[in-house]
């Protein structure tokens, strides 16, 4: 067998390492199941389920520490496509995507698909139109790419400043969701858990930068996927006799549709741009599961899909991850893997909500409000559901579920041992750490490389450069934690704003910077400012009810504004220089030296000369 230079770069033992991690996690769950049967206090089990995996993530993060900037900022560019895709898929929406999306599917059914389809489209567009060229360019951050592409420090610093807001929103959303799950798991206040998560992120990432982030987030992604899939696979075996819940919940949907009709669950029709996505409180089922456009109108569905698509495709916490593969070909493949893992997670979330609806329908069909099953009383005691006890007959509208507790409710409803509920909560914490860590890492690198050292193309010497990166990552993590404490907003809404802002600000400029060589510095500045400005105004107007458009749909105005601003400003100002055109031509060719590496090599030669 022959080895190419690319295959030699990749550690051949990665599969064994992550196999050991997955085995350790499964071993921990089995051990805790045994202890539960032996009557061990649930508090011990809960702490063990939280702390055990956290120790493993921290150990992985610390074990891969580095003193090389190339490793610190780009993980040595030797992360295989599958692992890159795994990290990207789970960092896209993180814990908010898993927890809130399960609840949203449960309450509004089909309409939640707009966010899922947007995610799929985001990966396709990123894989075809952006990531391969970004990989060839080789910059560690998006502002660094934009600055070099347009040969402008103003573009670099401006884009860094504009990216801070969506990244901080994402960090706050993920920390709040992670703190909710960790706080519920060990019975501690969410504020304390936010500090714990911030501490974990710092310990895990600071020493090894993106290298630590990449490998620890692979472990976190494995934990999150296992924690999501294992309980629902067991439920699928119990209910449908087949352990593939994503494919076997179809017949349940047919039975559900019948019962939903009999029980008078409405088939509503939302107005074209209505966007009634459930918030993080309690809500009864809003509509029949498979009937489309009852909570989100058809116009809003399309706009939400395209907004999420643009936000995911140009996400500054995902794009730099695509440059850590061994080559352009691997980068393209990594987005295929990301689509596979994202689809697995989202279809599992949909199946959880269907199984949960099925359990609820069984109770409602029995119809006796006074004789509730044990699992329902348990969920009431846990604070996951509220039941209106005024009527003697239990109706669908008299049961309200906490949106973010639907995921944790399924193992209780199915009568599984408590350890499976703890496992699901630990999986949520893992997903939150993964996505918050990705955003912290991205913003930390931006702060160190493009803000503090933003006025120089020449990087700092290795040692100060690394320390600056470490301090920036620590500072961003703490700032994100403080924001999570003082911003008591629904994490899903924060995520949707983040995607709308990212899509409006970056998507048009990034796409045009590759596919339209006439674009110049003025166009980039105008595109960034107009996209960001219009998106912020739309979000504020939507939240203040000044416009009839929900803030989450800000992309419908922000993206065209960004594109128009970029095109108009480019056309009315002088064309790009010959140097800039040559850079665009080279970026479009996968072969040859990575452009950022060439720039660094030339700088070194210049210094020696």
């Amino acid at each position, binding site marked *: 067998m022959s080895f190419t230079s690319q295959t030699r770069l990749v550690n051949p033992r990665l599969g064994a390492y992550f196999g050991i991690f997955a085995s350790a996690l499964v071993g921990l769950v089995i051990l805790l199941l045994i202890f539960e049967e032996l009557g061990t206090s649930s508090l011990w089990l809960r702490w063990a389920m939280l702390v055990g995996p956290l120790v493993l993530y921290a150990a992985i993060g610390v074990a891969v520490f580095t003193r090389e900037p190339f490793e610190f900022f780009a993980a040595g560019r030797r992360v295989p496509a599958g692992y890159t895709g795994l990290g990207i898929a789970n960092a896209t929406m993180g814990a908010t995507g898993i927890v809130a999306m399960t609840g949203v599917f449960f309450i509004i059914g089909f309409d939640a698909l707009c966010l899922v389809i947007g995610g799929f489209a985001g990966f396709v567009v990123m894989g075809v139109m952006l990531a391969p060229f970004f990989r060839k360019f080789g910059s560690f951050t998006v502002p660094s790419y934009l600055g070099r592409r347009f040969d402008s420090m103003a573009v670099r610093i401006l884009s860094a400043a504009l990216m801070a807001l969506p990244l901080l929103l994402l960090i706050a959303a993920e920390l709040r969701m992670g703190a909710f799950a960790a706080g519920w798991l060990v019975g501690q206040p969410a504020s304390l858990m936010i500090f714990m998560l911030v501490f974990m992120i710092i310990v895990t990432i600071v020493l090894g930068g993106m290298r630590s982030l990449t490998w620890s987030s692979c472990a976190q992604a494995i934990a999150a996927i296992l924690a999501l899939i294992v309980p629902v696979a067991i439920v699928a075996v119990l209910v449908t006799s087949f352990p593939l819940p994503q494919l076997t919940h179809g017949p349940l949907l047919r039975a559900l549709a019948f019962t939903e009709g009999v029980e008078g669950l409405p088939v509503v029709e939302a107005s074209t741009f209505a966007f009634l996505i459930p918030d993080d409180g309690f809500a009864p089922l809003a509509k029949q599961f498979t009937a*489309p456009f009852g909570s989100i109108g058809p116009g809003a569905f399309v706009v939400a*899909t395209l907004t999420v698509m643009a936000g995911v495709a140009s996400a500054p916490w995902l794009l730099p991850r695509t440059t850590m593969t061994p080559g352009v070909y691997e980068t393209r493949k990594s987005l*295929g893997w990301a*689509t596979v893992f994202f689809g697995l997670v989202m279809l599992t979330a949909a199946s959880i909500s269907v199984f949960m609806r099925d359990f609820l329908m069984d109770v409602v069909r029995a119809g006796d409000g006074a004789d509730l099953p044990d699992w329902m009383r348990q969920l009431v005691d846990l604070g996951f559901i509220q039941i209106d006890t005024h009527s003697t007959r239990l109706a669908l509208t008299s049961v309200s579920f906490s949106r973010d507790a639907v995921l944790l409710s399924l193992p209780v409803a199915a009568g599984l041992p408590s350890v499976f509920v703890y496992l699901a909560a630990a999986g949520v914490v893992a997903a939150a750490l993964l996505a918050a860590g990705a955003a912290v890492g991205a913003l930390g690198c931006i702060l160190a490389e493009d803000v503090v050292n933003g006025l120089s193309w020449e990087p700092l010497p290795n040692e100060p450069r690394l320390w600056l990166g470490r301090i920036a990552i620590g500072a961003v993590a703490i700032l994100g934690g403080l924001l999570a404490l003082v911003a008591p907003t629904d994490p899903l809404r924060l995520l949707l704003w983040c995607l709308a802002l990212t899509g409006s600000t970056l998507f048009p400029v990034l796409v045009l910077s590759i596919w339209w060589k006439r674009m110049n510095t003025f166009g980039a500045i105008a595109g960034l400012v107009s996209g960001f400005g219009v998106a912020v105004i739309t979000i504020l107007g939507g939240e203040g009810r000044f416009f009839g458009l929900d803030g989450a749909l800000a992309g419908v105005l922000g993206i065209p504004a960004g594109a128009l601003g970029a095109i108009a400003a480019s056309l009315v100002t002088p064309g790009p220089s010959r140097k800039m055109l040559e850079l665009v031509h080279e970026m479009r060719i*996968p*072969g040859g030296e990575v452009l950022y590496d060439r720039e660094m090599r030339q700088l070194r030669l210049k210094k020696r000369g």
Partner: protein
Amino acid sequence: MIERKERKPYWRHTKWQMIASVVPFLILIVVLPLYADSLNAEKFLGFPLGYFLSAHGIAVIAIFTIASFVNRQDAIDHWHGAHEDI
């Protein structure tokens, strides 16, 4: 390494491949969910067809789109000599 005169044909070929990959997919993800209600009358694997195509169907189509793009674009890279050196 790609020859200078090959750059233009390579980029033209790449642009067409991008359009062939992205445009049909985008049309599909916009149009398909809008017809989900009428498709739901049919069944597939026990699922209402509109829901199945909007969830599982689009997932499969997205994976297929990227997989075919990766193969086609790699062939284009090799055809024009623009591929990576290994």
